[in-house]
């Protein structure tokens, strides 16, 4: 299990940010290489992410679901479950988003197995950190 904390700033009102993070059609493409494959309910989607490593890439396909939602406190918990396409690995994560004025914090608890994990926890942490930092920058643009 890898746990990471990030904060972000969008410069937009909390209500705007709250609507944005709960809209999976807008949120998922904020992850580099991420796309919605199919909306399965207002709070869930089938999605995939293609992680490019130069010429090589790994694709994970699975589900993203808002499993907890506190509209007053502007806190949400998203559960990501995915499997490496054409491989044996998994990438699962609980992503807790807590909004405050003009931005918020993200706590990510991820479990990565398979080829990606075989590179070592330090590598997984570095890549996830880069992925989430990139995500927080894109959040400011939705």
């Amino acid at each position, binding site marked *: 299990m890898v746990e990471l904390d990030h904060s972000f700033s969008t410069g937009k009102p909390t209500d705007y940010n709250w609507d944005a993070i709960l809209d999976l059609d807008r949120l998922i493409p904020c992850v*580099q290489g991420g796309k919605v494959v199919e909306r399965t309910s207002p709070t869930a989607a089938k999605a995939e992410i293609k*992680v*490019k*490593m*130069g*010429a*090589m890439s790994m694709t994970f396909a699975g589900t993203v679901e808002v499993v907890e939602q506190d509209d007053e406190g502007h806190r949400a918990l998203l559960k990501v479950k995915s499997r490496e396409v054409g491989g044996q690995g998994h990438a699962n994560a609980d992503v807790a988003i807590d909004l405050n004025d003009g931005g918020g914090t993200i706590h990510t608890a991820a479990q990565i197995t398979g*080829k990606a994990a075989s*590179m*070592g926890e*330090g*590598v997984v942490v*570095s*890549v996830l*950190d*880069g*992925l989430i*930092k*990139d995500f927080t920058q894109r959040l400011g643009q939705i």
Partner: protein
Amino acid sequence: MAIPPGTYTLGPGDGTLTVRTGKAGAAAKAGHDLVIEVTRWEASLEVGEGSAGRVALTADARSLAVRSGSGGMGSLGDEEKASIAQSIDDDVLKGGTIAFRSSAVEQAPGGLRVQGDLDLLGATRPVAFDLDAGDDGRVTGSIRFKQSDWGIKPFSALFGTLKVADEVEVDVDATLPVE
């Protein structure tokens, strides 16, 4: 042996010009050490009696072809090799100038000692290398340099955790044409 006096023009039909790259960054294990061949280049070698001489080389920055990759996560197929060549074109060399011109050439044991200026993408820096000559007319030489010294930002991916190492090696291995 010493290179016989004369003027020689060399190209891909006479040998290979090869770039070797390594990898760096936290996720270096996922990357490949690459052997990349420059498929369009031309060199001229003028060797005079005694110390006089000149060496020049130009290469087409859009002619690099990935020949092999070692290490890394998974093996490189034709599609990945083509993708790397595309990235070299689009993100690194961008079809810029690659040219070397000697400023001093000296006879040295087993070949020539060459000093000169290497122009990469419009930035020019001095380099020096030995050209070793064999009895069979084979000449070999090698230089290592840092891309950043020429203002080139090494290619990086995976949020900067996987990079091409700044230092690259360029090797020439050719046989002098018989006059």
